[in-house]
């Protein structure tokens, strides 16, 4: 009898599973970038507490994984919104369209500063993008002045620039799978690289070679791929005063007592300097909305409204409090207009 009851219980458990798998969804489902995640969650929480709707579910899947899920199709089993720390690619949009996700609304929510930081115990340094490029690229212009590329010979910062201290080059940064790395390469390495005229000239002649020269990071230990956990980088910096770390501005802001940001080309990473554009290393953040879902998933419109409201995205909004660098006024206006009208991307 016991066995029979057991079997019955098992069978019933198996039986009920598919039934509810088809049940309805009454909350917003959001996926995407781990960089946007902390901002999206704040909005979601505010939204959940202030309205009668359920708090949206937000998964941190990385931008690529998020877009993959987002583009898989239209319907309850697919997410409504994806966050991204980079703009969606054309190929990805095409993939979306092929799967029936034809109308996608792009929302630019602000900027994220990328900071290079060191332990407070370390010797204070100032860097330029050129120096960073020389220290971290796989191949650099030959130090003897000839216009050729050689494998990076620099071991210490002093080798790069005699004014810098003789500390071993050790930079903890995001892995190549990360959008943060993407941004770092584009904003720092590319720029530093183009400060050499002969490389810049390559751009016209051989685009590919130019990119290979500028965007390839050394793999011999000078650059340490430290994972996506920025807190861990902070902790590691604390343990190792000689190392530098690359991470988002919000982490720097939270850990001011442990680490200090390095000035890039003389500009300290500060809230103001990033917002007004004088700090050179910052990137835009986005989220993408599936227009087909706006009308049918409960709370979608209200969530969008909450996100673009002044108290969230404005200069003194709670997102700014969390370290998101707000959009300039005119850009904010146009984004806000676009979202209200639900203008789909082309």
């Amino acid at each position, binding site marked *: 009898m016991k*066995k029979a009851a*057991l079997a019955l*219980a*098992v069978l019933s*458990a198996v039986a009920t*599973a*598919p039934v*509810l*798998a*088809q*049940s309805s*969804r009454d*909350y917003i*489902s959001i*996926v995407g970038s*781990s960089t946007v*995640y*902390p901002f*999206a*969650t*704040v909005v*979601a*929480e*505010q939204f*959940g*507490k*202030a309205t*009668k709707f*359920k*708090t949206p*579910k*937000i*998964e*941190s*899947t990385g931008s690529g994984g998020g877009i993959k899920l987002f583009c898989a199709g239209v319907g309850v*089993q697919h997410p409504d919104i994806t966050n991204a720390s980079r703009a969606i690619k054309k190929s990805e949009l095409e993939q979306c369209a092929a799967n029936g996700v034809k109308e996608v609304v792009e929302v630019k929510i602000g900027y994220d500063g990328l900071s290079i930081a060191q332990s*407070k115990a370390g010797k204070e340094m100032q860097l330029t993008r050129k120096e960073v490029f020389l220290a971290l690229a796989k191949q650099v212009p030959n130090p003897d002045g000839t216009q050729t590329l050689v494998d990076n010979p620099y071991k210490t910062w002093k080798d790069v620039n005699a004014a810098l201290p003789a500390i071993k080059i050790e930079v903890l940064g995001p892995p190549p799978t990360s959008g943060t790395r993407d941004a770092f390469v584009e904003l720092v390495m590319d720029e530093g690289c183009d400060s050499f005229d002969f490389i810049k000239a390559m751009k016209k002649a051989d685009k590919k070679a130019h990119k290979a020269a500028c965007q390839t990071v050394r793999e011999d230990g000078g650059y340490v791929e430290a994972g996506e*956990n*920025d*807190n861990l980088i902070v902790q590691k910096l604390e343990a190792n005063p000689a190392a530098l770390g690359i991470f988002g501005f*919000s*982490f720097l*802001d*939270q*850990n*001011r*007592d442990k680490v200090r940001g390095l000035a890039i080309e003389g500009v300290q990473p500060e809230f103001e300097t990033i917002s007004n554009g004088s700090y050179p290393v910052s990137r835009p953040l986005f989220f993408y909305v599936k227009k087909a879902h706006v009308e049918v998933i409960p709370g979608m419109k209200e969530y969008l409204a909450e996100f673009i409201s002044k108290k969230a995205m404005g200069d*003194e909004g*709670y997102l700014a*409090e*969390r*370290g998101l660098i707000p959009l300039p006024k005119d850009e904010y206006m146009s984004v806000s207009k676009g979202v209200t009208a639900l203008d789909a991307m082309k």
Partner: protein
Amino acid sequence: MTNPGKALPEGATSFARIQAGMAKRRAAERRFKMLGRIAVSVGLLFLSVLLISIVSKGYTAFWQTQMRIDVVLTADEIDPDGTRSAETLRKADYSSLIKQSMRDMFPEVSGRRDKFALYGLVSNGAAFDLRDKVMADPSLIGTKVSLWVPADDDVDMLMKGHIDRNAAEDDRRIKDNVLGWINQLEAEDRLELRFNIDFFTKGDSRDPELAGIRGALMGTIFTLIVTLSLSFPLGVAAAVYLEEFAPKNKWTDLIEVNINNLAAVPSIVFGLLGLAVFINVFGLPRSAPLLGGLVLTLMTLPTIIIASRAALKSVPPSIRDAALGIGASPMQATLYHVIPLALPGMLTGTIIGMAQALGETAPLLMIGMVAFIADVPQGVFDPSTALPVQIYLWADSPERAYVERTSAAIMVLLGFLALMNLVAVLLRKRFERRW
């Protein structure tokens, strides 16, 4: 004494030789025993270092700084039309009331930046606390209420000593003027460390001072219920079949190799399986405890089957023979004699499997359980996280106050584990035997 052994060298009786060797053997014995002691103590030392580092980081999270504020609930602000309808009360701007009360406390503060900092002393959650209070008792409108609300995480960190008051201003997250306000509030007895009930009753939040583990805990409980109710009967049934009834042939060999192999398959691969099969083929909802439970079931099943088979194996064949010998069918012999004897071993294996499931994070990464979910799940279909995932998420959060909460969540998780281990110990103690 006895005849000298013919085979032994002359002049030495075996006893004398034994005596001569004893010192060395005693020493070897002592060394061996000491090695055993050292091994056990090293293991325990590891455990205690780990636990001490966690507890010392996390115990403060069980207290939370609360701030007493006096709020004037002006009717005009909350309910200008006087309807007292729930919708109006819900939508009112309570945070402006709280800001007003902060300004009342520190009338000398001026300038946008400073005011911003002043408002920041109170948690974002205070407005919602106030709203709930007003909605529960609308008659409060128009009066002045004094209530305790959670203070901001920075204030909390300062009160708990995680922020050094004596550090230079530049090195401190709290600036001098804010520190002055906090000192004043302290002097007025408006700041107090109280037991942090919210930590156990609330779901996740992006504000450390409001974040709780209830959501993750419920998610874990639901997940484990699903896992246990599937994996235990399945595992025991499979083990009983393979150990007691299965004929020895290619097919059962295949099953056996399979199970052993599954036990060794990395948990993250089960995550891939869950993603491909349960989500993409069966269309189960992402992030649901049901899904997590299914994946963890498949993951723990081999553990349980192997442990159960070992338990069955350790029941001497004489028991089976005895039952069969008096005319019981194999099924009866198994059901009435072998399984009851093997049950403690099976349960121990199941508990180990459950403990493994309880701490598992990697496969849940793949099936969407690493998510921000503020609402406490109500069933196995609601989106939810699990405790270890919550720990992973909090550990990844920039706010410093999450460090202690992470450790505190770990402590809760370990509490769970201790409970499960206790059950396992009791079982083992009760039933352990040597044949």
